[in-house]
């Protein structure tokens, strides 16, 4: 009885690394694991997910995990809409409580041009089946009484894009849920295994070199977010990606006073209160690219100044933690998904920047379909790497949180 109590129940197995898999996924963050899970659902289980660190220890561990679909472009909106729908059912599907709290969200506009773009977004959202609308300061006050509308000050709140189904999810639960489900289907998870090279023959990727030996593979998927360029350089591929850190911090737990996520691109800050009462605060990426994941005092000061303009009530609150994660920023604030011309057997699942957590379900599903069938699903065709060559950039910038500085 006692022994039974102390018996470790493991979330996933620890198999030995084989020297061949049908599919090798580099990166065990939310995207690599979602892709693995969806491959399993399609019956492809000879799959290994390889991560140089612990599972979900990259951007996925550091995400503020706001899930929303109120994007701007006709390519982006349907993609994020489908992902949002999948999140609504994901706790059931993975049999794991992801604490998905659909608290709703306000994107605040403080200038005429910002309000113009909020209206454009509302229009496109409604046309494409996403629930959002522009509301006035009175309604904003009713939804978030503590918000300073900044009447008579610089940057008054003029309007907001209200997106009721937006929410926040428990980021590590999503990672563990996908990992456990993939493992149960027979897919292998190999944390603490670093990819050090990619094996190519005749213009085709045929495997990876790791610090635990060589593995051959039918297909290699790179889901390495902020590290994508370090992987692509192994196949002499330059990507339209620059790695920037994004920082966030949380306050001590406070009584419930805020039940919406609020975001202001004009004031470079966003915030929400967690179920535990802590207030999570974030903003734009750091002003210079780096692979260092150390947070900075300057950013803590800047974000505090920005958020106090909206939530002066937070002034006496103590700060508990601050952190940084790497973001693979693209020029058009949209992801890069799919095949690479002239390089068979290599699939990209990256360009997730500061916005990728919400996309994991649909990206995993569509990339898995591509791996299984060789055909790029329609939903992700606009996100191919070739869009930069063809001048078909997507431009989601106006819908990226607090992106104004960058």
């Amino acid at each position, binding site marked *: 009885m006692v022994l039974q109590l102390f018996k470790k129940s493991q979330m996933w197995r620890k198999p030995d690394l084989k020297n061949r898999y049908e599919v090798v996924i580099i990166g065990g963050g939310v995207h690599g694991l979602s892709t693995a899970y969806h491959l399993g659902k399609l019956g492809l289980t000879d799959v290994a997910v390889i991560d140089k660190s612990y599972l979900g220890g990259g951007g996925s561990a550091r995400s503020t995990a706001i899930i929303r679909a109120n994007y701007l472009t006709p390519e982006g909106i349907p993609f994020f809409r489908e992902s949002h729908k999948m999140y609504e059912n994901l706790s059931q599907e993975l049999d794991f409580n992801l604490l998905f709290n659909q608290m709703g969200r306000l994107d605040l506009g403080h200038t005429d041009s910002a309000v113009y773009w909020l209206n454009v977004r509302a229009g496109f959202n409604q046309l494409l089946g996403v629930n959002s609308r522009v509301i006035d300061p009175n309604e904003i006050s009713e939804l978030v009484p503590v918000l300073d509308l900044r009447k008579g000050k610089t940057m008054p709140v003029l309007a907001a894009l209200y997106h009721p189904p937006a929410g926040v999810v428990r980021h590590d639960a999503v990672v563990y849920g996908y990992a456990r489900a993939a493992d149960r289907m027979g897919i292998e998870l190999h944390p603490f295994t670093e990819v050090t090279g990619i094996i190519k023959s005749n213009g085709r990727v045929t495997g990876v070199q790791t610090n635990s030996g060589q593995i051959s593979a039918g297909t290699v998927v790179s889901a390495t977010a902020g*590290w994508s*360029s*370090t992987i692509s*350089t192994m196949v002499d591929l*330059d*990507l*339209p*990606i*620059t*790695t920037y850190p994004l920082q966030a911090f949380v306050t001590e737990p406070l009584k419930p006073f805020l039940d919406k996520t609020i975001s202001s691109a004009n004031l470079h800050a966003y915030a929400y209160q967690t179920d535990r009462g802590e207030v999570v605060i974030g903003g734009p990426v750091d*002003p*210079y*690219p*780096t*692979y*260092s994941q*150390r*947070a*900075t*005092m*300057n950013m803590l000061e800047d974000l505090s100044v920005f958020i106090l303009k909206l939530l002066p009530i937070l002034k006496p609150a103590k700060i508990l933690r601050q952190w940084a994660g790497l973001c693979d920023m693209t*020029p058009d604030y949209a992801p890069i998904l799919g095949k690479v011309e002239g390089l068979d057997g290599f699939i990209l699942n990256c360009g997730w920047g500061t916005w990728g957590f919400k996309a994991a379900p649909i990206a995993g599903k569509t990339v898995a379909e591509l791996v299984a069938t060789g055909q790029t699903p329609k939903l992700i065709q606009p996100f191919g790497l070739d869009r*930069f*060559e063809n001048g078909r950039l997507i431009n989601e910038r106006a819908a990226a949180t607090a992106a104004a500085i960058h």
Partner: protein
Amino acid sequence: MAFLVPCPNCGERNVYEFRCAGEIVTRPNSDAPQSERTAYLYLRKNVAGEQREWWYHKLGCRKWFTAIRNTVTNEVTETAWPDETVA
């Protein structure tokens, strides 16, 4: 991670005084093929290690210069004025 940048004019200053304008890329000729222009506009090495990049001392002397910085440790090992920079 914050760090100090040695401006060739002002000496070591807090990185937040500067604007980093990214890795140096060479502009192709106007008759260069489309692929080279795409590369110039969008594609980046984004190395995890030493790279040569553009810096602007926006809250100081407001001069542009180039630096070699390690993007993992953020150590700046060399700075130069644009006309002294070897590409």
